[in-house]
């Protein structure tokens, strides 16, 4: 599960206290309700206990932004892979072993000097699971869903991102089963880095479009491969 660590570090954000439910009696009530429902579904034979555990384990360990970071790093290194990714993202991403639920129909959006792409699901929480994992709370929240389409520049400012004058913002609202992944621009001064090191620069938010990749001086590139991959 620490697979996700590097991409969930956001040195570039302005942070806010997240307002979760602090009413513990309410929390306990929900926990009890969920436990009762689980017991009922197991007793009635609709759900297999081992399958349930395995589904959860899959979501916690097999999917996550480290997968997406590997895809982006490869695209930065290999121009023919990059072209394949832009032409047929589903197949190119599947070739790296990432496919399936909530990533059945992938489209990759390339950031350029002219265009910055940013992805939202205004209607619910659609998100490319195989390459990014489960969505963070803010992605599913009313502030992001309401404002990403109408005030993208201001939303980006809240993430600490200000774009160069003249770079247009293209917002993509995931209303269908097509899942969008942003291919961020390769940071400067990374010519000497290998694919594994490049992947360390790719943050989750840079693949949603609410962030930019890290620069090489922001990460410890000698970090062990276990952390990087």
């Amino acid at each position, binding site marked *: 599960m620490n697979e996700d660590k590097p991409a969930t570090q956001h040195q570039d954000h302005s942070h806010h206290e997240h307002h*979760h439910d602090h009413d513990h009696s309410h929390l306990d009530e929900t926990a009890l*309700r*969920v*436990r009762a429902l689980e017991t009922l579904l197991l007793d009635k034979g609709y759900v297999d206990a081992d399958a349930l555990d395995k589904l959860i384990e899959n979501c916690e360990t097999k999917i996550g932004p480290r997968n997406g970071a590997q895809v982006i790093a490869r695209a930065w290194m290999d121009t023919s892979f990059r072209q394949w990714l832009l032409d047929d993202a589903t197949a190119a991403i599947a070739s790296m072993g990432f496919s399936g639920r909530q990533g059945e129909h992938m489209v990759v959006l390339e950031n350029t000097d002219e265009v910055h792409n940013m992805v939202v699901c*205004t209607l619910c929480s659609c998100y490319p699971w195989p390459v990014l994992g489960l969505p963070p709370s803010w992605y599913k929240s009313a502030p992001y869903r309401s*404002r990403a389409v109408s005030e993208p520049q201001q939303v980006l400012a809240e993430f600490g991102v200000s774009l160069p004058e003249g770079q247009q913002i293209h917002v993509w609202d995931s209303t269908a089963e097509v899942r969008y992944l942003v291919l961020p621009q390769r940071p400067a001064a990374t010519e000497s880095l290998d694919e594994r090191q490049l992947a360390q620069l790719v943050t989750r938010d840079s693949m949603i479009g609410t962030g930019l990749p890290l620069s090489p001086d922001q990460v410890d590139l000698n970090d062990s491969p276990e952390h990087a991959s």
Partner: protein
Amino acid sequence: MNGVHDMGGMSCHGPVEVEENEPIFHSDWERRVLGLVLAAGATGQWNLDISRYARESLPPSQYLSIGYYRIWLLGLEKLLLQSGMISEEELASGRMEVKPIEVNRVLQAADVDAALAAGSPVTREPALPAQFASGQSVRVKNYQPTTHTRLPAYIRGHIGKIVRVHGCHVFPDSHALGLGEDPRWLYCVRFDADELWGERAESANGAIHVDCWEPYLQPVNS
């Protein structure tokens, strides 16, 4: 439906609150809800669109205030009741009181990896040729069904340009009502920011892209 879930362009929801190093789940019950939603969904007693419809038709004040995993939990309870898999009494007591119904399948642990890796692709063979092509201007219909739709309100009536033809996809508006897959052509439509937001647009050259099924669109008469 004109639901509270359809949030694009709404005001007064405040700033985006980012939690640093957010864990995948904030409590064990969230983890269990996710697992139960996936496992119960695998019975095949409903489809993805029916489950979205169940969540977005929760009472609006509840939808806005309870957090995403509670929305999933209430949605799941509703689906289990609707499909006759559990009774109100069982939901209240947590104990089996009526015999289980026969379900299409029960996902086994050995099949989990394969099921997740396969996913559920929604592209289908088209019955008819696509009515629109890339580069063409289209107007979004003033389409307001009272049931599930994936047409967000903020693009209704507006003109955009088709930038990509995604193929023929299962049509959620029919699928959510149990009317079959009813596959329709799906297009990615680009709208200029000032077309959608008028004077409120942050920049004249921004663009918003929305995936729209053919029944949502009409030709623009020149």
